[in-house]
């Protein structure tokens, strides 16, 4: 059995707000949500800006006891899942024909940071809820309980590729008939001082803002949030009159087997080719109507040039027809949630005929010579979309989408 797979619900928590609508309105308008950080003490880091979900208020979504048991990252996951469920117009108790696959890189980072800091400062006791708050699957488990989803539920952790791996796995399960519904996406809440100091030490965070593909780009800007997609067979979705955001058409993975942190164009290219092949399409067909690529586009010197080389390698003479943008310039790099946020952006772009821009763009870099949709969104009717995620550790995951 091989079924076409539709996305019938989308939920997002991001620096733009607690809904998918706020997220898409922001990035479609080319607005950057990168701001001075509030979650760590000012002046404690060499960088000062991030895309925090600053307006997120857990008491609007959970009662006090629930908050006690849920780290911020799991709260994000649950809020995004609720919106995806509501927009798919599905009721709770989905049962064992439904799955959840989430991506997460760091788990309950701030819970871990606070409790370990307290311990090392002399407090001999650590809260017994530390472990259930920290575990990377806390979000998936919460969603499972809330909606009575009793089929396959698990979490994938592959750094910045986590969400794409998660969505890809869920897509394959629905396509093959292993399950009839899947909530898939990812969540991340990485703003603890210890974790941010570790990013500072890697010297890849920009002191100003995120300028993907610009000549004067100075690095990434961290973000946080969650996005969840409801996946179901296209025919079933049509039969029940569900709104259809688009199709997930293909998924491809690869490993560079090269270096701990340096990207490799050939590894990225292999994942893109695998995703196109899985979608039973070709670079030529994909780009015929100006295909859209939501790039990994971190804004680091190495990523953006390597990704350009990979895209050129795959699309060759067709690359000039592509629209390639990095929405990380607006919602930040949300690590394990990045692919999920970018899948939501890609689906909305295809459905709405609006390609979100690469914001904060200043000057072209000859090493990134693609149409990167600088600063202003562009109206374009596009049939195919691709969303790239390339992780530290050399793990690549690429999704291909198709307009419904």
């Amino acid at each position: 059995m091989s079924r076409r797979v539709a996305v019938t619900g989308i939920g997002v928590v991001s620096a733009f707000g607690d809904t998918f609508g706020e997220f898409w309105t922001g990035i479609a308008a080319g607005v950057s949500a990168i701001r001075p950080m509030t979650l760590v003490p000012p002046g404690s880091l060499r960088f000062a800006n991030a895309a925090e979900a600053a307006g997120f208020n857990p008491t609007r979504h959970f009662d006090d006891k629930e908050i006690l048991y849920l780290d911020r990252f799991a709260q994000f996951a649950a809020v995004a899942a609720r919106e995806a469920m509501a927009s798919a117009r599905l009721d709770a108790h989905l049962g064992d024909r439904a799955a959840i696959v989430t991506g997460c890189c760091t788990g309950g980072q701030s819970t871990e940071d606070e409790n370990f800091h307290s311990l090392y400062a002399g407090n001999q006791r650590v809260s017994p809820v530390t472990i259930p708050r920290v575990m990377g699957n806390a979000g998936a488990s919460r969603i499972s309980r809330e909606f009575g989803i009793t089929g396959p539920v698990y979490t994938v952790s592959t750094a910045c590729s986590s969400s794409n791996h998660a969505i890809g796995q869920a897509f394959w399960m629905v396509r093959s008939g292993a399950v009839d519904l899947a909530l898939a996406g990812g969540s991340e809440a990485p703003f603890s001082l210890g974790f941010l100091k570790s990013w500072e030490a890697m010297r890849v965070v920009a002191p100003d803002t995120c300028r993907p593909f610009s000549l004067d780009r100075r690095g990434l800007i961290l973000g946080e949030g969650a996005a969840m997609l409801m996946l179901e067979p296209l025919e079933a979705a049509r039969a029940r009159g569900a709104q259809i955001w688009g199709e997930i058409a293909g998924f491809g993975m690869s490993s560079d087997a090269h270096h701990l942190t340096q990207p490799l164009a050939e590894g990225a290219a292999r994942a893109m080719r695998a995703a196109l092949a899985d979608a039973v399409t070709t670079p030529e067909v994909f780009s015929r109507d100006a295909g859209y690529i939501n790039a990994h586009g971190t804004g680091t010197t190495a990523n953006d040039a390597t990704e350009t080389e990979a895209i050129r390698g795959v699309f060759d003479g067709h690359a000039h027809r592509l629209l390639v943008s990095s929405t990380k310039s607006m919602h930040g790099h949300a690590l394990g949630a990045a692919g999920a946020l970018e899948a939501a952006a890609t689906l909305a772009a295809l459905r709405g005929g609006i390609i979100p821009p690469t914001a904060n763009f200043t000057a072209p870099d000859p090493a990134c010579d693609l149409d990167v949709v600088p600063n202003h969104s562009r109206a374009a009717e596009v049939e195919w979309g691709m969303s790239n995620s390339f992780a530290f550790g050399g793990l690549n995951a690429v999704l291909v989408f198709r307009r419904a």
Partner: protein
Amino acid sequence: MSEAGTGPGRATGLVDARVIAVIARMQKIPVDSINLDQSFEDLKIDSLDGINLMFEIENEFGIEIPDEEAKQIGSVRQMTEGIEKLLALKQA
């Protein structure tokens, strides 16, 4: 350690020796296999090794190397010259 009265040349020699000692420790190679004219590439110091090396150098000399300056450093001599500049700024 007081470097008073040692003169600029002497101080430079000390910086060189300390940088080379840190590189030797981080790259797990003998001190006498490292000289000022080598690039990081010659010494098989890749981008991640380089970041790790800067971190150790900052500890060794009690300095902070800004990201933009760190990006410009690609050889042992560029490293020692950069450190001398930062040490001079620190003492000023």
